[in-house]
């Protein structure tokens, strides 16, 4: 029983971090059909910008707002200046299944991973967010204010993005640009701008994820790549294009990882999610909520 309680202690925060990152991935995939390997790296840039602003302003919340605005701009520009030219087709810049774009996201992640230590130093930063200091314990189960607030923020973000893509005109344009780009173009949907906005939003939610991670551990240049590499099972479990699926995938990934380290040992941390993913994909090849047409890509 104590092991179960201990296992569950890590789940809320990990779920929040993974869900925030994967919802950004789903958003980009919905708008562009591109699997974005640079999600963690974009979040890392936003987190470092927020940290520097926090140091300059000596206040977290204004720094957070400005940091998220900067992350929004950086995400959009990263797409417009780097990924859009790689996708090449000016008429259909936002809807590409090109391997080149996929590799471009890997290059971008590697470049950011190399640039951050150069620009901000390689020293890990003891990062803290001014939150209420309360903790709740029941047996071996621990919950603190960071766990609860990160989870709550994640739920709000997921609901906003989920509802936004379903109900807002921008969300409808995103889906149109992704599903029928040529037809969307006939209806004056600017696919480039749609893709830019999706990347910008993904950078913002990625920033929130890395900040939550940094507050629980530390902020260091490897955070982005570590998180980025860890979350793909969540994305594939849920299905590449499902908002609710990414949330379920994040919960499952957090549960599987936590159970693996508690019951099997630390060397199962990165292996166990892939075993679980393999088992799920044998039964449901498109993940729990994915649509078959996308898994063929």
């Amino acid at each position, binding site marked *: 029983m*104590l092991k179960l*309680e*201990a*296992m569950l*202690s*890590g*789940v809320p*925060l*990990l779920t929040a*971090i993974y869900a925030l990152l994967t919802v950004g991935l789903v958003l980009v995939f919905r708008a562009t059909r591109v699997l974005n390997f640079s999600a963690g790296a974009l979040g890392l840039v936003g987190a470092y910008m927020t940290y520097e602003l926090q140091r300059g302003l000596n206040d977290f919340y204004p720094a957070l707002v400005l940091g998220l605005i900067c992350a929004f701009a950086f995400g959009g520009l990263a797409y417009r200046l780097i990924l859009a030219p*790689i*996708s*090449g*087709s000016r*008429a*259909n810049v936002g*809807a590409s299944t*090109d*391997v*080149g774009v996929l*590799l*471009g996201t*890997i*290059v971008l992640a*590697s*470049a950011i*991973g*190399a640039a951050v*230590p*150069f620009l901000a*130093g*390689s*020293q*890990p930063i*003891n990062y803290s967010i001014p939150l209420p200091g309360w*903790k709740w314990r029941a*047996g*071996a*189960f*621990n919950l*603190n204010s960071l766990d609860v607030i990160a989870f709550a923020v994640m739920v709000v973000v997921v609901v906003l993005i989920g509802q936004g893509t379903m109900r807002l005109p921008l969300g409808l344009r995103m889906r149109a640009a992704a599903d*029928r*780009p*040529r037809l969307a173009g006939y209806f004056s949907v600017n696919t480039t701008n749609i893709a830019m906005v999706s990347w910008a939003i993904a950078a913002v939610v990625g920033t929130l994820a890395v900040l939550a991670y940094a507050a*629980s*551990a*530390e902020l*260091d*240049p*490897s955070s982005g790549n*570590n*998180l980025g*590499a*860890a979350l793909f099972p969540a994305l594939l479990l849920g299905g590449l294009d499902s908002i609710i699926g990414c949330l379920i995938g994040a919960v499952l990934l957090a549960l599987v990882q*936590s159970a693996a*380290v508690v019951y099997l040992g*630390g*060397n199962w*941390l990165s292996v166990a999610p892939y075993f679980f993913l393999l088992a799920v994909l044998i039964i449901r090849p498109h993940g729990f909520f994915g649509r078959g047409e996308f898994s063929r*890509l």
Partner: protein
Amino acid sequence: MTRIGKPDRRQPRRSKRVVCVVGALAGTLAVAACGGGSSAGAGSSTSPSAGGVYHVGASMILSGPAAAYGANMTGGMQAYFKYVNAHGGVNGKQIQLDTADGGLVASSTIQSLKTLVSQDHDIVVGGLLPSSGVQGARSTITALKTTVLEGSPIGQDVNPQYSPLFYGGGGPIYPADAYIQTNFAKAQVIKGNAHPRIGLIYEISSATVAYGNVIKKLAQQNGWDLVDTESYQVGTTSFASQAAKMAAAKPDYIFASFDESNFAFIKALQAAGVKAPIIANQGGPTAQQLQQLAYPGLYVERAYVYPVGNSPVVKQYLARVKQYGGGADPTNHITQYGYVQAQIIVAVLQKCGADCTTDKFTSTIGGMHSIPTGGFTFAPVSYSKADAGGFPTSAFYTWDTSTNKLVKLPNLYTWPQS
């Protein structure tokens, strides 16, 4: 999938793009792999090093989740080599550091060693050379007949010496760490508690698994109750569950062999309510992190001085890393490994002479039983066939939360005991 555009025109363009992106990817990775080290240029000299240059190789982890190790180790080595070069070099010759990405596994370590020795003609190879890589590269090292200085050695390589080519070039030897920590704990921490409950934490590598096994053996010998063992991989994103499990086991004392994740793990232990004294190895917190954690009873074993304060050796080190270290973190113990490894290499080259070759370097280092570090380590680096680890002596530091100061505890601990 519906597409816009003219397929007949787009197809070749897409192929070109793919090629370009693959090229860019390869280029980016190559740049990352080069890190802060000087590249091994074409036309490198053959042994003995000609043209007024000693070629020294370093196999580092320069990519992946542990890439910070390589950056810091390179920075530490360059800090001392460039300082020496700026002051006339060694025996009138400059030292050129060639780096290669050896990664964490044997295959990439072997490749890096072959590149450094066969292609760049380096007369000695240092660097981090993690135990997991070196274990599989033993026969390669023997075949290359080049001395290696392991930054993260395992006892089987150096205690006793596996071959005249193997030397410790960084931290204490991991099983020796376990003995030193246990002796310290018995003398200073576990006083009057005959059957304490012990927790064990270690990062997963060949060396630290060996450390864990020795702690388990010593716990059994001493009648200690090992109540929980937690191991973790480099790059682990959350320690909350493992910390909660450790808290539930209610250890009286915790032994730990950490890596860069030490701060995150200890933070998670604090969040889970763990208050047991922690005896950590050199990979434990930096002095600044000790202050930030303010964890009462956190003891860190160190073969090197903490780079804080105003002592001349610390001031020299900090100034050189700042000037020549290429952005390496001077507070990181791996940077210190690199710095002292460079000190060892320079000392051997001085004795080896201007015509130093690979073979001559090996015979020279084999005869150097005590290499001074100017107070950077708590004892001179010592090599013998019985123990070629180099760093048998450690001190322990803690953060005194009542005075808010870093405290070095009075006694030194040595293993093997003379």
